[in-house]
């Protein structure tokens, strides 16, 4: 039971942290609960599909299929987060004003916000497929049904609880700084995902490592510990990263920051200016 609960908890935790950040970053979006639920649902379906195709994926590209598949899913998530973060840097003010003055929600359809819901699906797909394979093995290996039936819910509840804790913690950030904070969390999340993708490509010998272990902080915080694992998702923590992982992490951060600065500096659109004037006169 404990083994099942622990594995399920660790995989659910990773997906739950990503879902929480997305949930916070899409604050004020109309029907986001529905979008997030749909993302999770699609992710679960995808996870089952990936688990069913595990054999074909494993044998693809001379046995590098798993690494390439993981890297592609991760890079897709990085691109979607990048798109959103850059879009957000020019629309955050508008969004906050909308929430403060009208108190209403904005529609997700026309914006890049819908990208983030796809990120939810990808996160659930990647972590979920491992759970499916593990549970299939446990069931086929004759593990007791009782152990599975208690272990799975305990693991899921534990992981989801941490996700909710992070979400409600983030909601305590004042609205003025809120989207700046969630945007930075998304930047670090994307950088970490890019670093993980690079690790997979090194494992398949498709990228040079540029130094296998550039530093080693595993005595301080091990990759295998729950905190190490949570920080791995949140900021891309790795106790002993390879050089190429650091390159990918830094490149992602630098590109996103440049993208954010460039769009933030763009002159405000007419609608923004009008909204700002309307907001300030209403306040005085």
């Amino acid at each position, binding site marked *: 039971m404990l083994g099942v609960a622990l*594995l399920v908890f660790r995989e659910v935790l990773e997906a739950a942290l990503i879902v929480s950040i997305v949930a916070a970053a899409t604050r004020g979006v109309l029907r986001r609960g529905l979008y997030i639920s749909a993302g999770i649902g699609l992710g679960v379906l995808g996870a089952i599909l990936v688990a069913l195709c*595990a054999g074909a994926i494993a044998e693809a590209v001379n046995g590098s299929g798993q690494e390439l598949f993981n890297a592609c899913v991760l890079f897709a998530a990085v691109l979607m987060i990048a798109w959103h973060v850059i879009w957000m840097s020019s629309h955050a003010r508008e969004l906050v004003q909308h929430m403060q003055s009208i108190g209403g929600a904005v529609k997700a359809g026309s914006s890049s916000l819908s990208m983030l819901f796809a990120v939810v699906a990808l996160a659930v797909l990647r972590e979920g497929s491992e759970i499916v394979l*593990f549970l*299939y*093995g*446990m069931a*086929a290996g004759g593990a007791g049904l009782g152990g599975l039936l208690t272990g799975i819910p305990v693991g899921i509840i534990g992981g989801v609880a941490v996700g909710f804790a992070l979400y409600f913690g983030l909601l305590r950030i004042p609205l003025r700084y809120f989207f700046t904070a969630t945007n930075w969390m998304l930047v670090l999340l994307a950088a970490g995902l890019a670093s993980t993708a690079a690790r997979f490509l090194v494992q*398949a010998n498709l990228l040079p490592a540029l130094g296998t272990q550039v530093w080693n902080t595993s005595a301080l915080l091990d*990759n295998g510990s729950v905190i190490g694992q949570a920080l791995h998702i949140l900021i891309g923590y790795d106790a002993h990263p390879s050089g190429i992982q650091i390159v990918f992490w830094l490149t992602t951060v630098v590109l996103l920051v440049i993208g954010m600065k460039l769009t933030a500096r763009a002159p405000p659109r007419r609608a923004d200016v009008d909204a700002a004037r309307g907001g300030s006169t209403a306040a005085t």
Partner: protein
Amino acid sequence: MVRKFLVVGFALGLFAVTAAAAADMPEYKLAIKDHKFEPAQLTAPANAKFKVLVTNQDATPSEFESNDFNREKIVLPGNTITVFVGPLDKGSYKFFDDFHQDTGNGVLIVQ
């Protein structure tokens, strides 16, 4: 357009170089049997890249994983996976079967 060709050419070149290097890289074999590694201890030279081949002889999926040398790959029943490892400094590095952590444990000795 030219840049695109350069990028593709560079990628192919890189692939060819790494593929050629992979061919004469030392290989170390592991089997997973009854959710245990055979052998449970592997010895490899320091400061050199090598391949670890893991064959799953059980009827259930396993995941070859190490937090000490940062690798993770699923091994389906009856399949063999290849994982590129190193170059590593001297020392001992633990690895495990993520799906059977109570029995599937091993150590890689790099010397």
